[in-house]
């Protein structure tokens, strides 16, 4: 059992979740309530990671973030570090890759709020922030929670991108999924088995949790 790989994966998942929380709320609300030209295209772009192989993102990240590229150099000049082969690089990949998992459930959550409720809040003179805090978030919470759990679980399972841009550095880019692959390659089935079982249990718990939330929410709506 590679504890440093597990804790690295948990850290990556937590950061991805934290960063996508506000981004998901913002984009989820915009996509739920606003109509604008090119909206289908925008929605399609955010949904792309659902269908694209991780290797495509991995390839573009290698091309865009490498030490020889303008973006890679800019980041290097800014921080003295490089993005490829680093935790920060993985985090960027992970955020991009989890966009649909964060946005879509939140968007459905906000869509479920009747327009009358928001109108009423506006009529009562509630500010935008107070409406968000007191009206919208309490009503959309099952979607938001589902989004966060899915993002977290999906990050733990990320493999293709990490394999391509990570470099398997212990404590930095060697996530649990990579560690499992490495252990299998090294014919260490005991460690691979233990880590696979751990990941299976965490993922099952996370997915069960989202089903639990939505079934609770449904039965409450029907009361």
């Amino acid at each position, binding site marked *: 059992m590679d504890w440093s790989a597990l804790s690295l994966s948990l850290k990556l998942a937590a950061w991805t979740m934290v960063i996508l929380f506000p981004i998901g709320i913002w984009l989820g609300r915009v996509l739920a309530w606003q109509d604008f030209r090119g909206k289908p295209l925008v929605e399609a772009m955010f949904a792309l990671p659902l269908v694209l192989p991780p290797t495509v993102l991995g390839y573009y990240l290698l091309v865009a973030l490498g030490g020889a590229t303008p973006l890679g150099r800019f980041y290097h000049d800014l921080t003295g570090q490089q993005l490829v*082969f680093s935790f920060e690089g993985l985090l960027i990949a992970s955020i991009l890759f989890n966009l649909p998992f964060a946005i879509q459930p939140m968007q459905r959550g906000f869509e479920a709020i009747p327009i009358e409720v928001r109108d009423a809040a506006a009529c009562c003179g509630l500010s935008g922030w107070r409406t968000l805090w007191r009206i919208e978030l309490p009503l959309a919470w099952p979607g938001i929670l589902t989004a966060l759990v899915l993002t977290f679980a999906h990050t733990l399972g990320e493999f293709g991108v990490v394999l391509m841009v990570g*470099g398997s550095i212990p404590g930095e880019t060697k996530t649990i999924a990579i560690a499992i692959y490495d252990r299998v390659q090294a014919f260490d089935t005991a460690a691979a088995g233990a880590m696979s079982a751990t990941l299976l249990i965490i993922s099952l718990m996370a997915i069960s949790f989202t089903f639990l939330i939505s079934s609770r929410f449904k039965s409450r709506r029907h009361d």
Partner: protein
Amino acid sequence: MSYQSIVQWSLHVWLLPAALLVVLPAQAQSTTDVPTVAAASDLQFALEDIAARFRADTKLDVKLVFGSSGNFYRQIEQGAPFQLFMSADEGFIFKLADLGRVEDRGALYAVGRIVLFAPHQSSFKPDAQFKGLKSALTNDRIKRFAIANPEHAPYGRAAEQTLRKLGLWSSLQPKLVLGENVSQAAQFATSGSADGGIFAFSLALSPAVSKLGSYVLIPAETHDPLRQRMALVKGANISARTFYNYLQQSGGREIFKRYGFVLPSEI
């Protein structure tokens, strides 16, 4: 789609392929099929050339699959439909022979060499004594250095042995990025994101790689010989057999030599 249906949907996406998986293995390979060759990733460029010449010479065809020898070992052990296995590590061939999965203990076809590579904008110039790398290391100018994962890749193991022998292992280890196989190590080392790396000579000799930087051949005494062995998988057809023989004849050997491999006859 509700938030729940996204979860359900992503589960459904997996059901159809899973069902297909149960059905597909029933298809058996016929004796006239184009045989599939499982080849270690250091053969990437050399074997493509040999196969092209083989097709022209014999009018027979082979399909090439490149990957890590360990993966192929496991797949062939489980009955994967490869007909020829060209391993970068002869140990895998011997194990499969003991299991009765391959016809015999096969043939040594090449001995691999490794190079020290630095991309154009690197902080050091490669030399056979590793002086440039050493001084770059002491001046803390090395950020990342790429090798194949020594835990399972033969070329990674050779790289580790060399670095240990030269007393560079402990200072370089925190800077290492590990490729899943030697090809990925080469990709990392040449990408400009690492300051250099150690990988197979056969890959460095390919124009696609050599134009990205400079390299020196690492003396063979610094690591255990990379003895590469191949064997026919049981049930191999006539095309596979012909290719197996072709690899050991002058046409194949000449190309192996051109790609920097040491031939069995030269040892």
